[in-house]
């Protein structure tokens, strides 16, 4: 399965078997999260699902690990700001 998904509205190509995180790095994107407390940029760190640094929002669901999530055509991938749950904050 190859194709493209959207990252913050821009198309990102991927090849068979790649994760979302791998495809982003291959496209030169190194950061896709801003931290909750200090608003610092984060990207992929452990690469194997242990550290949870590479969290992003996929199809509206936050806290998805980019290093584990298989890339698929048409995914709507977005930078996660803070908890990614701003919609729940009054």
């Amino acid at each position, binding site marked *: 399965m190859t194709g493209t998904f959207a990252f913050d509205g821009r198309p990102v190509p991927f090849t068979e078997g790649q994760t979302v995180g791998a*495809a982003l790095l291959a496209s030169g994107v*190194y*950061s896709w999260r801003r931290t909750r407390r200090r608003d610092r940029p984060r*990207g992929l760190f452990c690469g194997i699902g242990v550290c949870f640094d590479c969290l992003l929002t996929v199809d509206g669901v936050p806290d998805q690990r980019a290093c584990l999530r298989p890339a698929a055509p048409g995914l709507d991938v977005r930078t996660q700001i803070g908890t990614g749950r701003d919609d729940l904050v009054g």
Partner: protein
Amino acid sequence: MISSADGAQQAAAVTAAVTAQARPGLAVVGAGPAGLAAAVTAAESGMAVTVVDAGLRIGGQYWRHGAAGVAADADLHHDRAVFADLSARLDRAVAAGSVRLLLQHQVWALTREGDGGTTVLAVDRTDPARPTEIRVAANHLVLAVGAYDRQLPFPGWDLPGVMTVGAAQALLKGSGVVVGPRVLVAGTGPFLLPVAAGLAARGATVVGVHEAAHPAGWLRRLPALGAAPTKVAEAAGYAAVFARHRIPLRHRSVVVRAHGTDRVTAVTLARLSSRGRVRPGTRRTVPVDVLAVGYGFTAQSELPLQAACAVRVTPDGTVAVTVDDEQRTNNPRVLAAGEITGVGGAQLAVAEGLLAGAAAARSAGLRSHADVARARARRDRLRRFATAMHQVYPVPPAWLSQLDGDTVVCRCEEVTVADIDDAIRLGARDGRTVKLLSRSGMGWCQGRECGYATSCLTAHRLGTEPDLAAGADRPVATPVPLGLVARGGLHPAPADALPRIPNPNPIPDPNSLEEHR
């Protein structure tokens, strides 16, 4: 709601189902070198085996591969013939119905049952948008959950572009992505070599490999080196790759700082004394696109601890499961194999996996035809090598003197060195209290990344010995949607008696809920 009488009746029915049904004899958690060896050995002895692994494909971290298979990246893999053999035997066992393989299933908890068996609770992420839960009840359990890179904090290590050596390797082997273009590889241990060689072979410019230790340490441990001749040949192979790509390999050299605003652009290196301390006046800064760093490995200890396995802290600072000569833990029906019994590499893991699979079969009253004596000799030999390896590549104390007050220690909760010092000022006298007061280690990763550093930093400040096992227990091994737990209840039934529970988040399907009531 069901009445308590109904509940008791239901529980009795479930118990009857457990004894009457052919429940899986063995659950194997992990499909890396150890888990594969255990699973095929047990299955070939006549056991019914369920293998559970979080990955997309079998092979674990060591034989991680992309859609095209291990053979497509032959130069990145070692012991391919062993993997081909294990993989073919697993396929045969799956075809014969003696192995059930559950990939993309991440185990979040283990529960001990009254009859001495174990129930494995896993999140099924085969449909990433709709996780469900599955429970596997088994009489015997082999834990082969592996390890991950150990990290030490330093200023700037939270910048994007700073990643673990394991991440660089996983991206290369699993997704065919070369991080870079200019990569600096640093830390300690033999693992730095294949990662650097693989990156260079695939087109990255490896600006340097900075190993904190000095290989002269091997000279005092030649018998251990002689116990693993293939490792020596492997190292010679990397030396050839390094020469071909002109990769500078520096010993007693460490990264003390990463620079950049939105991502790493440079790192500062320093030389170490023979005692692992930074030598003054040796700093220099080099431009990089990526820093891949790692200081050995940490075993995944949470599932063994959930299974109430006895553990010990090994000399390399890892919390490892204590096993007997047959890989049995203190619970004879729970076996452990691979990195979680003490970090030692894939060949050792395969030997231990075979022994664990054979021991499980014997314990179930079956005869194993595996060559146990040979595996045992091989394991003991490779264990001697691993012990020597830990002595040659210790974690150098240099990092403790290179921290700033605002250096992040806990990446998840963004707890800094100053926050930890505040906790100590408030009266914390051990890593656990520091954690409670500062939140270091209380985020998503549950201290997997910062636990070692928090313990060591606290002990360093107080002049005590770090308690590395204190923060290793994690009752929930991986985040699991609350809806799954709520619907599953706290007392799991065997897998066959309990239907798969759909995640009510994001949108529950009323019909399917009805069906499972």
